[in-house]
């Protein structure tokens, strides 16, 4: 089933006309209302009248995450404050949080695109959606919630965590669709087995999984152990939250809701647009947002676009499952961490620049696990085991309180950490994407 055939199966010509109209209106509005955009366009000598069609989008300047931080909290607001009905922010672990500001129309838009997303996974009125994404500032929880309400499904707002309870609710209420991170889905299946039942015996039929990168191998594992159809969903707080793109039953790329979120792929180094099929950085323009619309926002996510019409009947462009990042951001259990932040914490604890290595793996529990290996130099070495154990605990606790990350700390001998060309290899990511 297709939630909104008018939008999702529109002819390319009609869609381009719609995108062109919307881009024109958007540029006109932000030029008048947001000094940040006006200054950037003036600097390039671009006037709203220069934007006549969607093809003109390449004339517009990019917006970066750093600029969002510089304008925190309300600098990019394109509506009046009293029009806002909801605020979300990113976790802020990588610096000042970025803000999503929603008007009533923005929430309606979010409900609409999440309705499309859930429908792509086979969800409809009569289904019971167990929403195990965290409710709160994080967009996952409310995004799925609004989508489920939109299509008239029954939503259980259980939020994240408490696996035993998740399983009891799933069993007692006959959940048919599960929404959570892919690693948590596998963890639930494993926990169910330990409790002596098999999720394949449950009425569960599908799942919407996102908020962290995953592989096709992991999909097979999820589908086999839960007995469901597993769908990748993508989104980001800056644009709307989940609902930017999602997989239909064909699972050959994620359909981008391009009538409202216009995607481009660029060369991350030169900023030049790349042709369809070529890998590069995903850039998104939120064409119809009122609260915090973004023009050519650089997501730092790497993917490519697939333009051919999908056999599901939707004509929207698809993006390949995420292939990486343009920066060294690590996403661990939904927490965003840069290695430099871990280094900062270590430096502060020991008063010296330590040699360290970060190892990320998806362990036996299927959840992302992070190990931080710290070389024991003379400055921190003690002949008493208790002192070293205490150091391990301090590092663990500091990382936990600073970054919200529970890492396994391992003390290693000096030079145990592989150095390449004099520079230590800091990150080993063993997760297969």
């Amino acid at each position: 089933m297709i939630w909104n055939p008018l939008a999702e199966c529109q002819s390319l010509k009609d869609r381009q006309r719609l995108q062109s109209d919307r881009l024109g209106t958007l540029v006109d509005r932000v030029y008048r209302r947001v000094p940040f955009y006006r200054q950037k366009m003036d600097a390039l000598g671009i006037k709203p009248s220069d934007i006549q069609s969607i093809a003109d989008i390449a004339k517009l300047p990019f917006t970066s995450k750093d600029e969002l931080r510089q304008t925190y909290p309300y600098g990019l607001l394109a509506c009046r404050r009293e029009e806002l009905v909801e605020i979300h922010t990113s976790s802020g672990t990588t610096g000042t949080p970025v803000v999503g500001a929603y008007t009533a129309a923005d929430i309606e838009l979010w409900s609409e695109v999440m309705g499309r997303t859930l429908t792509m996974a086979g969800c409809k009125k009569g289904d019971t959606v167990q929403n195990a994404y965290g409710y709160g500032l994080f967009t996952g929880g409310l995004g799925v919630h609004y989508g489920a309400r939109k299509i008239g499904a029954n939503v259980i707002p259980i939020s994240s965590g408490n696996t035993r309870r998740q399983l009891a609710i799933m069993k007692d209420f006959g959940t048919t669709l599960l929404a959570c991170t892919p690693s948590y889905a596998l963890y639930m299946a494993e926990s169910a087995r330990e409790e002596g039942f098999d999720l394949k015996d449950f009425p569960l039929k599908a799942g919407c999984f996102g908020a962290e990168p995953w592989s096709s191998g992991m999909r097979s594992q999820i589908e086999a152990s839960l007995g469901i159809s597993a769908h990748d969903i993508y989104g980001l707080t800056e644009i709307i939250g989940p609902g930017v793109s999602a997989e239909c039953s064909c699972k050959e790329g994620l359909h981008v809701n391009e009538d409202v979120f216009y995607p481009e792929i660029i060369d991350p180094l030169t900023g030049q647009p790349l042709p369809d099929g070529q890998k590069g950085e995903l850039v998104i323009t939120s064409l119809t947002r009122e609260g915090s619309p973004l023009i050519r926002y650089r997501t730092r996510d790497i993917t490519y676009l697939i333009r051919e019409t999908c056999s599901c009947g939707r004509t929207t462009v698809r993006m390949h499952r995420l292939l990486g990042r343009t920066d060294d951001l690590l996403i661990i259990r939904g927490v965003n961490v840069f290695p430099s932040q871990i280094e900062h914490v270590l430096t502060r604890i020991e008063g010296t620049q330590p040699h360290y290595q970060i190892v990320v793996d998806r362990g036996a529990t299927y959840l992302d696990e992070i190990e931080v290996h710290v070389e024991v130099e003379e400055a921190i070495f003690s002949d008493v085991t208790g002192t070293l154990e205490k150091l391990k605990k301090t590092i663990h606790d500091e990382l936990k309180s600073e970054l919200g990350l529970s890492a396994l700390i391992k003390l290693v001998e000096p030079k145990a950490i592989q150095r390449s060309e004099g520079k230590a290899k800091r990150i080993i990511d063993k997760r297969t994407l």
Partner: protein
Amino acid sequence: MIIKQISIFMENTTGRLAETTALLAGAGINLRAISIADTADFGILRMVTDKPDETLALLRGSGMTARETDVIGVEVQDHPGELARVMALFRDEGINIEYLYASLERKKEMAVIIFKVALVEKSLEMLTRSGYTTVSSF
């Protein structure tokens, strides 16, 4: 008197001890006492050798994390109840012992107990007062 103990940091991997002892053997260094403290993923090798300065230089030179620590070596008679008497002294004086290990001294038929304590001077004074001999090497 003070003994200079050398300790090194070690990951718990097979063959690590064999390598280290072979290194000492090659340099003609004699181990007088040795102990290992181990945890789930690392260990600390502590040793008293006949040439502490050379030992330290050798181990550091081969890339290990090594340090020198002042410990106390007490001679006690090699028969039942002797260690208990020394321990009672530390207890009565309120001195906490971080760790200890022992070695036998054949020439004198004595045992040497190596103590690591926070209060080195106080411990030395207490032991001398109680009639014990502390050694700087053995």
